[in-house]
């Protein structure tokens, strides 16, 4: 606002006769776009945030937010966080490992190009198709399941965990690992061989190098990427919805059930309260992510 004010003042000073008229007309060019995103992006967000503070009778209070105390909601949040932490940690470690394998290879090689473009596609792979891929692989009649069963290995000694939280962790890894590769590879590329040589010429061994040189340098990037993976898994709905048909063990599924009218249990107010909780968690995680990324960017350049 102050920038706009200053600019107007400058134009007024230079061209007293035109200044007042030109500026508003120029702004008109951005109006269609701003109106559109206002209607379909900002308004929905406002509806969620504001709606969480309005009860069923339309008065402003915290009654909808108190539904966050309900045992099933608390449980859903715990499961969501647990699922996201586990899939983020496993995805980050596995993805970093794969990125390291790529980074130590030929930078112009076929392997690197194949893996990075495949990662670009797979990181966005999700939803129904992904769920089906794993049902076809390790579902009750899945290819791998049947194959292993023929060889005397039962991957489901107790229950079929594919359709539960452990299954979601495995399935989410399918897009978490590629995402980690995409985010972490630039950091690994920033590591210079000279640093290792310097460590060795000072008498350090591989452990010293990883503990005192590469480790501390890569830590912020690794942590930041893990946070991104957390947010990625925490926000995911489609894959879980396609895989899990009953109950609402995680927050996105709980929200889905609350707004789907055909279920008959719809409660938009409560859905908004749950959604607000998600916004807060994702916002905190993503802000930490961008702080860590900026820290990494300092020495990557």
């Amino acid at each position, binding site marked *: 606002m102050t920038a706009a004010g200053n600019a107007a003042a400058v134009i007024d000073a230079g061209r007293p006769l035109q200044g007042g008229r030109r500026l508003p007309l120029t702004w008109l060019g951005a109006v*269609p776009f701003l109106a*559109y995103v206002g209607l379909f992006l900002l308004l929905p967000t406002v509806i969620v945030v504001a709606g969480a503070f309005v009860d069923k009778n339309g008065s402003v209070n915290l009654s909808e937010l108190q539904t966050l105390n309900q045992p099933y909601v608390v449980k859903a949040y715990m499961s969501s966080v647990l699922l996201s932490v586990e899939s983020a940690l496993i995805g980050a470690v596995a993805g970093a490992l794969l990125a390291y394998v790529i980074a130590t290879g030929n930078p112009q090689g076929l392997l690197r190009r194949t893996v990075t473009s495949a990662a670009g596609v797979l*990181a966005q792979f999700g939803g129904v*198709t992904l769920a089906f891929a794993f049902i076809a692989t390790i579902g009750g009649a899945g290819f791998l399941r049947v194959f292993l069963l023929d060889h005397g290995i039962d991957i489901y000694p107790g229950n079929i965990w594919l359709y539960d939280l452990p299954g979601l962790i495995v399935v989410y890894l399918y897009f978490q690992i590629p*995402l980690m590769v995409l985010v972490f590879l630039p950091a690994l590329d920033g590591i210079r061989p000279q640093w290792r040589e310097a460590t060795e010429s000072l008498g350090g061994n591989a452990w010293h190098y990883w503990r005192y040189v590469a480790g501390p340098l890569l830590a912020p990037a690794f942590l930041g990427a893990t946070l991104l993976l957390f947010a990625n898994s925490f*926000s995911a709905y489609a894959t879980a919805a396609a895989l899990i048909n009953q109950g609402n063990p995680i927050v996105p599924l709980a*929200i889905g059930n609350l707004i789907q009218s055909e279920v008959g249990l719809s409660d938009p107010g409560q859905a908004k309260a749950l959604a607000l909780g998600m916004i807060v968690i994702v*916002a905190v995680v993503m802000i930490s992510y961008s702080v860590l990324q900026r820290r990494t960017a300092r020495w990557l350049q």
Partner: protein
Amino acid sequence: MKAGRARFQVFRAVMLVLFGAFFLVPIGAMFEFSTRGTGIAAPRTWAAWTSILTYPDLTNAIVASLELCVITSILMVILLLPTMVWVRLRLPRLRGVIEFICLLPLTIPAIVLIVGLVPIYYFMALNISDNILTLSLAYVILVLPYAYRSMDVGLAAIDVKTLTEAARSLGASWPTVMARIIVPNIRVAILNALLLSVALVLGEFTFANLLSYVNLQVAIAQLGRANAGVSISTAVASLLFAFVLLMVISFVGRRRPPSLAAAATDPQYLTSGQRT
């Protein structure tokens, strides 16, 4: 030293095989599953593939999804491109704001956005239209980040200001400038944006499902409960289609294949409270 290097090569090879298996086996398993015959010793069959078009629910959904792709793409270009050009030329102060808004859908989870969209769509269904094609209005928001990133790269590569001023001084109108100067110069970027949008709309499930519209993915999910073979073959077909589109991008673009995720993970653009 030599032994260490050999050991490392073995470690690399083992890792690559393990990761390769994790990512390729599920895709292969889908093919395997969709060509199974009914019965224990039944021979391989393409029935699940050839019968895709015999399910009216499925064909309707395929048509609807393709229409959604077209409408979303057109809307996206009409809405975004003139705004981006105008902002570059006349409203440079607004550029940060536009960029922030365009990348916001990466930060706000789709499942959150849909909670706020339900009342808006309810209102539209009552007062304007409840056609499935209204979904494209919300899809434009979903594709914004990817379209913005793609077209921003394209516009950065040309001198928009000089080109526009030259055309204007020769008497071209603004629509002529857009259609005959800007668009031809950044056609690769526009094509990228279009293909990414199409890939995204074809794979969209969350919005359609929760607004009770049956698009391709919703139809696949519903059919999965009745006929797993056909629904999996359709899923593979849609996956292949999207994959071919992304391959087209990487060939036409002659650059590093642009990826949805690359846009989603660029730290420079993730300064807000965010993602899918």
